[in-house]
């Protein structure tokens, strides 16, 4: 009997794991500036992916996609604080209806609704899931201790004969958002390095702080960091690394508990999205760049999967976690699932036909196609007045920015094309280079295929 512990953290970019320094060789990557022995252990003893992406670099859309295996326009959570379409089953509802598994949730949810943390009963109860009632916290320094303590106890104690799926929603390194917000607002923050002897430990600023192309929807590019100089960026990155290390110690507690359980339990580690990390001068998420979109994805189960295999070749996605658990448990996949089972890849087998690109939403109307070598970025002009109209008219008639949704489809003329092989820091926009016409049309065709395939969601619970 297999159990599953999903650890989802908040705003952790893929390259912030110390073991990955051998893949991210440029010292501007944070792998060179963190110490994450427990995530390293998961990688060394499990299977991990270096081409793993979020379906949307925003909390709610990404998390809702993880728990439904559907793209944002389908589950309806195209931005934060909107509920999942009631007709789209989440993982807990699905396994509750189709198996003996029970699903339990602890920590940050934020996969639909205006609230970050679920509650045991009432409006914040997650359909289909038993919430471990640790309460709410808006910062990881307090929430994450509670989560890892409660999750590790649950794993140690839960009945051996009852299969379970347990989600551990850790909040860090999202605390870095407070760093940036207060910097601009309060004008009181000084650099840690002014007061602490950490100069030798400050990561360098990324090499793509300055770039010379114009982004789509340039008036609304967000969030713009407030007046960081290079040294302040270095301090931002330094503190971010420490927050990732906090996560790593929470992972240790959970891993040890799973190990003590001594059964066939998977641990899956991932993040909803990454952070701007100063790349292209950005903080937080929302962006079409690799720092925001590339996320860690690690599977650990010494009893069932390969050991120490780092997959650098296959495109994988948060959407794949749900189908993978279905595959391992013999439960059919939910209808219209957009993910693929990773089971063959975890067991060292050829998966047969695999996706040759990844489709990502950025913000509400931005679209990204990442292929073997290139990344194409475009954005529609938003034709709604606000979020409410964007999702649903006041008379209750569905409206969304999807196929047949009634919005205009005017595109921003500024688009982007990057050669990720030659230009991993995304500094040169090739969109207007005539030599890349064929490349562009291939990506635009893939985007069109996605837009025709997606089924917009309809029935939302806005709480």
């Amino acid at each position, binding site marked *: 009997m297999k159990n599953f512990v999903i650890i989802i953290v908040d705003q952790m970019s893929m390259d912030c794991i110390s073991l990955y320094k051998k893949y991210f060789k440029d010292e501007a990557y944070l792998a060179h500036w963190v110490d994450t022995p427990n995530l390293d252990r998961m990688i060394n003893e499990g299977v991990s992916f270096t081409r793993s992406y979020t379906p949307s670099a925003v909390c709610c859309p990404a998390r809702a996609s993880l728990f439904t295996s559907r793209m944002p326009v389908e589950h309806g959570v195209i931005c934060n604080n909107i509920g999942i379409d009631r007709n789209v089953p989440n993982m807990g509802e699905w396994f509750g209806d189709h198996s003996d598994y029970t699903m339990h949730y602890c920590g940050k949810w934020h996969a639909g609704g205006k609230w970050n943390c679920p509650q045991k009963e009432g409006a914040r109860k997650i359909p289909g899931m038993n919430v471990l009632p640790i309460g709410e916290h808006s910062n990881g320094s307090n929430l994450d201790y509670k989560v890892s303590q*409660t999750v590790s106890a649950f794993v140690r*104690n839960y009945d051996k004969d009852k299969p379970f799926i347990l989600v551990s929603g850790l909040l860090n390194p999202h605390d870095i958002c407070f760093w940036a917000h207060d910097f601009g607002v309060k004008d009181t923050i000084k650099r840690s390095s002014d007061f602490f002897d*950490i100069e030798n430990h400050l990561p360098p600023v990324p090499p793509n702080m300055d770039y010379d192309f114009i982004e789509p929807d340039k008036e609304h590019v967000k969030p713009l960091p407030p007046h960081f100089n290079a040294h302040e960026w270095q301090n931002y990155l330094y503190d971010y690394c420490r927050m990732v290390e906090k996560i790593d110690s929470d992972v240790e507690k959970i891993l040890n508990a799973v190990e003590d359980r001594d059964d066939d339990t998977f641990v899956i580690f991932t993040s909803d999205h990454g952070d701007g990390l100063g790349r292209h001068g950005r903080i937080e998420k929302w962006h079409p760049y690799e720092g925001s979109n590339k996320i860690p994805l690690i599977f650990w189960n010494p009893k069932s999967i390969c050991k120490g295999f780092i997959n650098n070749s296959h495109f994988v996605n948060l959407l794949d976690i749900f189908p993978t658990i279905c595959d391992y448990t013999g439960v059919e996949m939910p209808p219209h699932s957009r993910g693929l089972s990773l089971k063959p890849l975890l067991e060292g087998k050829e998966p047969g036909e695999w996706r040759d690109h990844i489709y990502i939403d950025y913000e509400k109307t931005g679209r990204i196609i990442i292929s073997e070598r290139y990344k194409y970025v475009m954005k529609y002009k938003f034709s709604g007045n606000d979020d409410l109209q964007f999702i649903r008219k006041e008379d209750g008639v569905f409206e969304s920015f999807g196929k047949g949704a009634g919005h205009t489809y005017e595109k921003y003329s500024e688009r982007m094309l990057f050669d990720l092989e030659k230009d991993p820091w995304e500094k040169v926009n090739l969109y207007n280079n005539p030599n890349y016409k064929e490349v562009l049309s291939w990506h635009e065709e893939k985007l069109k295929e996605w837009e025709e395939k997606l089924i917009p969601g309809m029935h939302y619970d806005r709480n």
Partner: protein
Amino acid sequence: MTYITDKVMIMMGKAARQEMADHISKRFYGLLDYKITGQPLKSKVQWENEYMIFACPHSRPDLKGYMKMIKYPLDNERHGLKIRLCRFGNDGYHCFLQMNLECLNDFLCTPVKWTFETKLAKQWDEEAYPYTCQQGECFVDRGTLYETINGKDRSKPLKGNYTFRYNLFDAIQTNGEKMDGAFSFSIIDELNVIKKDNMLKPYIELNLPSINKNMDIRSYVHTGQSVIPAVYGLGFDGRVLFYISGIEILFLINRENELSKGWKNLYEKLRNYHC
């Protein structure tokens, strides 16, 4: 040890507290604007052998927790330390951690063995929420940390100087005056997680006006693996008054004006916690 937490806060006075807040907040994330500016205490009852610290996240001051430490002598070389930590939830349950440690009377109050219990419960002495209770024992022998949690054994290497995260409060309080240089150590954080390359060293000294006279505040900075640079501040009596790290703050705080009825109930529970 001295036990005049409340008195210190009274003597500082509102203006002094504000000054300290201003001074420190310039170095951190704007944390202290609200937290040190409360009215003076009505009660001047001194606490003995205990202190209480609230965690006060800047963005959500309604969500807090408390920590209580009780120190008692064992013999010439060792002392005992009892710690209860409660992180409040708003869903009817709170997250508790209680530890009983046996520590050396050395620079870092080095723990040599300890027991712990964790649970999610409405109150410490009430039944735990299902599946959320853990009990364990740990000890260190010749550079190895041994632990038994819910009957399962594990060990891992632990080299050099080390202390327990919450022992740092005790270590700094006990040895503050002797701390004239930096020193490094490992932290055992939350039961058993070892974090290396931690460093503690002297930081700024403040001379702040208070109601009756100026008072000195000394501070020490803590850096290391997974530690957002943090500062421990000591009052003139050597007592740790505050700990600040990023958006996290632990602070000795008055109990009359800050505690609602619910908090008072919790406080009474806390007061009734004896060795």
